[in-house]
């Protein structure tokens, strides 16, 4: 529109969008514009309104107020079908693909290529076209591979190809790097840039600052359902960004405390499980935070699950307070004082349909048993105490887990673990998928726990977290510990080298 020259450059523009759910304003006067060929990062804490905003763009939700323009023409989407036809595609964090179908079948699901009057499926053209699309992204995947055989990262490439197959001009990527390793993320950056080069405009949602710096041209921040601002990525600092997202300054994201480190609480010697890990020996002292880092698939979680008795090791020794213990199952682990915060809180730790208090009680059912009966009021008291101590944000302890944000869900898992008297706590990716505010809170809790004398084994892929919180750092690569650092001599480069390079140089 000529009369408004400032907006001529936008391919998609939303003005003053308001979305109201019963009792909550999910979006409050949010404006946004996407320029042709740009990568626009959309950032904000969990619950800031990013998902709702995306759903307004794709037509899942109808906004109560505001306008949306596509190529400067006002549009109304009543369903995702409308938005797809208009050339908008969305790639979700969790792949929506069918694992038993091939790559080509997944790409053309719903818009297959047909032949002749009988509408015979033309697989030859579909495979050829799928290959073209993957080639254009620089991927060499075989279109006949089934989706289930692919890694999360590879599945995302297929999802991108699928979006391209529908001739999408705007692609929305919803936290695509959340489940990826550093290396995989970098591959994804490459594909995304290729996508950009081919003229597609991209909205990129993420928690990670690296993603924004690496990819974004501009960034828009939402907080508490409100539009905070839009910046050129190269003109905003880390601190400004945190301030925009959290609304307060986090001066020290890693409140590592100076703690008196005591005796060895956990020691493992020559732990081995065929095909997963071997020669694993290390120890954790009272009050000490030891990180176990490395790439996803290096065997870190497997070591944790062996120590916790989910899948015990084939051989090797586990010692608690210097005495050898036999851990065949999680019950044994609990009895010896080992607790585990699993990697996937929704799948492995929580019952989403249950209230906070019942989930916390699940951490130690035996404790709340009085003779034959289960003592619900005892459970609720304990849940209340822990919820206050960990500052779980909810109206009461009877709120359902599914209504909580990722960070608060994680705090419930921590509360659950703390119902048991423990000596050693294993935290497997404790800040995965939580926003920066909740991260700071979880680090704070870790600091407190170490002060109280717990030994902590931290499994993490996030370099800043590993460097910021650990007393010692162990690096795993292909099932073995390849390096150990103290907090004084650890650097990001050295850790990365140990995680990636070692054997590649050797072989």
């Amino acid at each position: 529109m000529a009369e408004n020259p400032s907006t001529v450059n936008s391919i998609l523009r939303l003005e003053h969008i308001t979305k109201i759910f019963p009792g909550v304003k999910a979006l409050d006067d949010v404006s946004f514009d996407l320029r042709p060929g740009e990568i626009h990062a959309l950032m904000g804490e969990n619950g800031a309104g990013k998902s709702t905003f995306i759903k307004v763009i794709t037509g899942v939700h109808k906004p109560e107020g505001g306008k949306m323009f596509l190529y400067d023409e006002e549009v109304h989407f009543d369903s995702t079908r409308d938005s797809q036809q208009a050339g908008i595609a969305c790639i979700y964090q969790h792949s929506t693909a069918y694992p038993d179908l091939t790559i080509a079948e997944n790409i053309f699901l719903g818009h297959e290529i047909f032949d002749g009057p009988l509408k015979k499926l033309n697989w030859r053209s579909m495979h050829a076209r799928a290959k073209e699309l993957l080639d254009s992204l620089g991927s060499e995947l075989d279109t006949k591979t089934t989706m289930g055989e692919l890694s999360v990262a590879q599945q995302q490439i297929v999802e991108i190809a699928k979006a391209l197959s529908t001739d999408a001009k705007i692609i929305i990527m919803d936290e695509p790097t959340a489940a990826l390793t550093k290396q995989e993320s970098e591959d994804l950056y490459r594909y995304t840039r290729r996508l950009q080069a081919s003229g597609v405009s991209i909205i990129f949602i993420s928690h990670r600052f690296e993603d924004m710096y690496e990819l974004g041209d501009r960034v828009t921040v939402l907080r508490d359902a409100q539009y905070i601002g839009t910046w050129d990525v190269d003109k905003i600092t880390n601190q400004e960004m945190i301030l925009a997202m959290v609304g307060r300054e986090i001066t020290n994201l890693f409140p590592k405390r100076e703690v008196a480190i005591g005796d060895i609480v956990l020691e493992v010697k020559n732990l081995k499980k065929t095909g997963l890990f071997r020669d694993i020996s290390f120890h954790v002292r009272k009050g000490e935070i030891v990180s176990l880092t490395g790439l996803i698939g290096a065997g870190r979680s497997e070591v944790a699950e062996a120590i916790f008795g989910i899948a015990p090791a084939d051989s090797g020794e586990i010692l608690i307070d210097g005495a050898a213990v036999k851990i065949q199952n999680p019950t044994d682990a609990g009895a010896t004082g080992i607790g585990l915060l699993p990697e996937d809180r929704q799948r492995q730790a929580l019952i989403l349909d249950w209230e906070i208090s019942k989930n916390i009680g699940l951490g130690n059912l035996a404790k709340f048993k009085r003779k034959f009966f289960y003592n619900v009021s005892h459970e609720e008291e304990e849940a209340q105490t822990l919820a206050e101590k960990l500052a779980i944000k909810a109206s009461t302890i009877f709120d359902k887990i599914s209504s909580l944000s990722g960070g608060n869900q994680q705090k419930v898992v921590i509360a659950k673990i703390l119902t048991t008297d423990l000596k050693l706590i294993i935290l497997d990716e404790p800040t995965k998928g939580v926003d920066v505010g909740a991260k700071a809170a979880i680090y704070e809790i870790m600091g407190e726990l170490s002060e109280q004398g717990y030994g902590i084994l931290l499994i993490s892929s996030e370099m800043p977290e590993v460097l910021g919180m650990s007393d010692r750092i162990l690096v795993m690569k292909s099932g073995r510990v390849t390096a150990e650092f103290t907090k004084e001599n650890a650097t990001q480069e050295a850790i990365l080298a140990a995680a990636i390079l070692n054997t590649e140089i050797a072989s």
Partner: protein
Amino acid sequence: MANMQRTNVELDRLALQHSFDAKKFFIRWESLLVVILIGILVLNVVVSNGNFLGSQFFSAANGFMDKSFIVLSMAFVLITGEIDISVGSTVALSAVLMAISYNAGLPMALAIALCILVGAGCGAINGLIFVKFRELPTMIITLATMIIYRGVATIILEDRASGGFPDWFAEISWGSLGPVPYSVIVFALLATLFAVVLHKTAFGRELFAIGNNKLAAQFSRIKVNRDLFVAFLLNGLMAGVCALFLTSRMTSTRPNIADGYELEAIAIVVLAGIPTTGGKGNMTGVILAVFIIGFLRNGLGMFNVTSPVMSVIIGLLLIGTVLISNFFINKEKKL
């Protein structure tokens, strides 16, 4: 029942947001069941010209009590998200072995003990196979044992009836305390016991946790295998109890008895509000559903409705109830 109250509190909270009371009422599954039960009781009273209020009530109840024992334990199995379709065959095998061993000279008291033990044994075998081979779905395991148990019963007895039990044996199912048949008393005791275990003990909480999220239950240090084994064992045990009362009521047994009991038990449990995916439900619903199906059959019987027609009606009732409830629950969810 803490668990139940809590669910109701939740529903109250949901319902508070809306002014239309019918919603509040119907989204409580048990309310719906109570309405249906009252309707069916009225039907029985009308059809029997009022006789139902007298002696008929208990004699009718006595007629369906035996299979109701299985419903209690089947509720446990379904709450864990598993299924057991072998119980009908377990009833047959237990009854046949009791009859055979008595006729071979075993004292009746021991034959009864054997009946219960065989039931428990069959359940234990199901549980053991499941725990040892977790990759096999329980539908397949119990389909196999359903065929095997029934097959063994038929091999032992062939197509004959076996009976000739002492007179006092019939008393187990035909005797009563005042107007109340022993079977109803035993059911009341067992139903209370199952309800207390499910809603008041850590074990009950564990069953719900397993049904909701097996992996999270395991990470929460719940002995998932042990609990599932116990659920299957109990189901077999209750099938043994069923065999005892059924044989006593029939005075003799054949290898083809209790055919289809497993499906009826599962249907009653689902009607009670326990989804086959597990994790939800309560014993109040189960007990209501037992009487709904039992008295519905009785009332229809008085109309001379044939058995196949009865099955169709029960099927329709099952679908109808689930749909009505889903309708109101989905309406809630959309808002």
